[in-house]
């Protein structure tokens, strides 16, 4: 066994002790009142129930469920996963039970949780998004909608909605008109100018943006000489993409006035603080659940510890609190 020496913290522990007041981690965004800024990212937390055995779901700021489509989707053929340095490639292919089954079989479990429930929706046409939004707005357990616009737009030759300002505007506007629920638009990082896309979503009336979705990537099994994923290209997540995500959260925060929800490679409280300082009002834990199901709780504790150490009483004190040289 290797000795594991402790790392000396640069500041003394005294700093932490001097301000023991429990910081206030509540945050209001997009008309929602979150008990804390730690959410769980769509697709990494199933429909909530899967992780209820490991953590207390009531401690989460919000649960964002796996993306729901109008009709069930069977998803992509396996293999769907490949590990890369500090990252994970996935090509689930948006497999989900579909709107009807979601409402019947998944939503009831969530009734027992007192955290916010945000439903991530996806469509292949604007009409599908609108139909989903309309139906989900009827259910009181649904607190907000998150629009996944990284999906191929079949009316535009399969180009993802979120790679184009115009398509983004159109789909967000249509959904905005269909629902009174708080609306979060989830941005794709696979674009030249994410700030421009965010601005289009804002103009179209979204209440917040969340980012980043996964970065397109690929891995090859050199021994079999075939792609590691059956569908060749997949989405990269995990620590590897954190610097890309922090950069985009920073750029988008500078460009829009609506709140930003940050994610991409958050593994611990320090990572989460990085996103908050970059301008995010809340953050989501994704791939980290697979590594440690207790991550969201640990992230929250880490944020609190950071706030106590530097004597910040409210989240507003750290959001975007960055000195640019």
């Amino acid at each position, binding site marked *: 066994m290797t000795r594991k020496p402790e790392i000396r913290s640069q500041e003394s522990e005294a700093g932490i002790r001097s301000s023991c007041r429990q910081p206030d981690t509540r945050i209001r965004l997009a008309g929602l009142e979150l008990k804390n800024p730690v959410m769980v990212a769509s697709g990494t937390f199933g429909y909530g129930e899967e992780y209820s055995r*490991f953590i207390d779901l009531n401690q989460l700021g919000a649960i964002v469920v796996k993306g729901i489509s109008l009709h069930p989707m069977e998803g992509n053929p396996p*293999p769907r*996963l490949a590990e890369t340095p500090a990252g994970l490639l996935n090509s689930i292919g948006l497999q989900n039970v579909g709107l009807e089954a979601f409402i019947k079989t998944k939503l009831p479990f969530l009734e027992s949780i007192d955290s916010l429930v945000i439903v991530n929706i996806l469509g292949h046409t604007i009409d599908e998004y609108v139909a989903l939004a309309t139906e989900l707005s009827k259910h009181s357990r649904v607190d907000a909608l998150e629009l996944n616009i990284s999906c191929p737009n079949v009316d535009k030759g399969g180009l993802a909605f979120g790679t184009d300002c115009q398509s983004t505007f159109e789909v967000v506007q249509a959904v905005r008109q269909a629902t009174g629920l708080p609306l979060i638009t989830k941005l794709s990082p696979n674009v030249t100018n994410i700030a421009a896309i965010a601005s289009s979503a804002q103009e179209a009336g979204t209440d917040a943006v969340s980012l980043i979705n996964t970065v397109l990537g690929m891995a090859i099994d050199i021994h079999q000489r075939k792609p590691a994923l059956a569908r060749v290209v997949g989405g990269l997540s995990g620590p590897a993409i954190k610097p890309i995500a922090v950069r985009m959260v920073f750029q988008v925060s500078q460009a829009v006035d609506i709140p930003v929800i940050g994610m991409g490679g958050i593994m611990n409280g320090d990572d989460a603080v990085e996103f908050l300082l970059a301008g995010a009002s809340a953050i989501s834990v994704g791939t980290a659940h697979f590594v440690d199901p207790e991550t969201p709780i640990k992230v929250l504790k880490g944020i609190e510890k950071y706030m106590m150490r530097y004597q910040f009483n409210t989240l507003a004190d750290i959001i975007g609190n960055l000195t640019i040289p």
Partner: protein
Amino acid sequence: MTAKIIENYRISSYYYRLTLDCAEIAQKAAPGQFVMIRVNHEVEPLLRRPFSIHRQWTSSSHRSAQAEGIQILFRIVGKGTAHLASLSRGAKIDIIGPLGQGFRLKTAISHPLLIAGGIGAAPLLFLADRIEEAQALPLQPRLFLGGKTKEDILCREDFEKDGFSLHISTEDGSMGHKGLIMEPFSDYLKQAMLSGKNEITIFACGPLPLMYKVAEAARQYNLSCQVSLEQKMACGVGACLGCVIEWADADNPSRYRRVCKEGPVFEAGRRCEARRQEL
């Protein structure tokens, strides 16, 4: 949760048997279930690694003693398993489980046939222990154990202690029959059917091609059969939908099923007529 390593025993160049102190998991465990182990706290490998529960473990020699831990039998194939092999007694590892759906042993089994390829023996020993404990069988249980060389033939004595009669094959002929384990297994099935021993239940674990062949044979003779399958996993708890495999049966028409949740043990014999063509 955290488990302390009681022992990390090197069986041969690539095989290790890891004994972990984790009563909670051990007492809930059923044969065929698995655990997800975080081999280190680095970003590489990022994900946990799945391992079948090889055996329940107790420090006491008393037979009815409660399980205090579990054993994992593993083979070094890459970074994660290499790191796991480097850990020593006393080290602590992060583990979750038991996970997934194990072997179904509800109905009385009169003639269990177990078949394993290589490391596939790992979960079958736990199953053999249970069969030995619970059942007074009319016929001696049998195990078909195949590998590339004799190094890949694992736990022979343990299965024998559990009262199993063993058929062994190696591809290089260094132990037992020279060739693939499907050969003696097919021969046995053929003979058994001729002699009317059709109350057979097959339990299989090993490489996917072998599992296909076993399932095919089971359907051919209309036998009950359960196979344990593998797929790369991320969450291990059914949340990410990453570990699916195309394996449907009459009761479960959905095309892709999660190895970590609906599996790793799937029905593969007479109840699986729906998608026979796909296997």
